[in-house]
């Protein structure tokens, strides 16, 4: 196991490469979820905005 982690002394190279790749994939997963969530939030906000009762735009003229 230790031998596996050491990667013949070149652990830094192998693991950083695999680590960066993993990070990139995870970032993209997060980004997709995040933008989806943001879009749904904005849709929710604009939907409730149109449903909320609005004040009448006509004012009494004295």
């Amino acid at each position, binding site marked *: 196991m230790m031998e*596996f982690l050491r*990667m*013949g*002394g*070149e652990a830094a*190279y*192998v693991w*950083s*490469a*695999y680590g*960066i*790749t993993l990070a*990139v*994939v995870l*970032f*993209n*997963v997060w*980004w*997709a*979820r*995040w*933008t*989806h*969530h*943001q*879009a*749904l939030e*904005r*849709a*929710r906000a*604009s*939907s409730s905005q149109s449903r909320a009762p609005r004040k009448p735009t006509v004012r009494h003229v004295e």
Partner: protein
Amino acid sequence: MRLPRWFHLLGSPPFVYGLAGRLVPWLGTIAIVLLLVGAYWGLAVAPPDRVQGEVYRIIFLHPQVAYISMMAYVVMAVSAGIGFIWRIKLAHAVAVTAAPIGTTFTVCALATGAIWGRPTWGTFWQWTDPRIMSETLLLFLFLSYLALRAAFEDRDKADRVSAILAVVGVVNVPIIHYSVIWWNSLHQGPSFMKLDKPSIAPEMLPPFLIMIAAFTVCFYWLLLNGLRGQIVERERDTRWVRQLVEGREA
């Protein structure tokens, strides 16, 4: 000529949203399984290389990620072109989704390439290596696409202008690629500059191929995943999105 029904359905945002939603879990599972199997095989099962020792194991990441980054640009350019010519909004949505995925994969390719270069070539960066130059220029092409999009407030204009840029870019990609290879062929100087990746021994081939499949599925998984967010964003004020959002609240 009557087009099949599915052809028209593919232009319908709610349909694609639902379809993508159903496909995403499957693609995700397949991608993760393939990635884990490929990584395990490449790291633990495949024997060390005669010349490069353990460091060669980056061969199960770097070429695949680089290949996907180029594929991402093509996907982006083709869908942007389709969106421009036939005015299909969903096609533009695909292009926009592909761009950040392609950009991050390009960065990953350059990073893993540099990490691999240090122990094998002796240096992190070799300007005269054609693949580094090609990939770096590809990064600039992605960044310029993103920058151009960001400069426009009107989404429709941004879509169409960046589509032109993407198509011009994709035509250039093979030209750039072969120019750089020719340019490098002039520099066959000291042998330490050679981009000798180890020739694939039979024990190393399966994980290499598995990782190609893994990253390809992963790309499409990420693409469909991101596409859903794009669709909701673009269709924010439509009835089907309102129903979707209210349905979720219920």
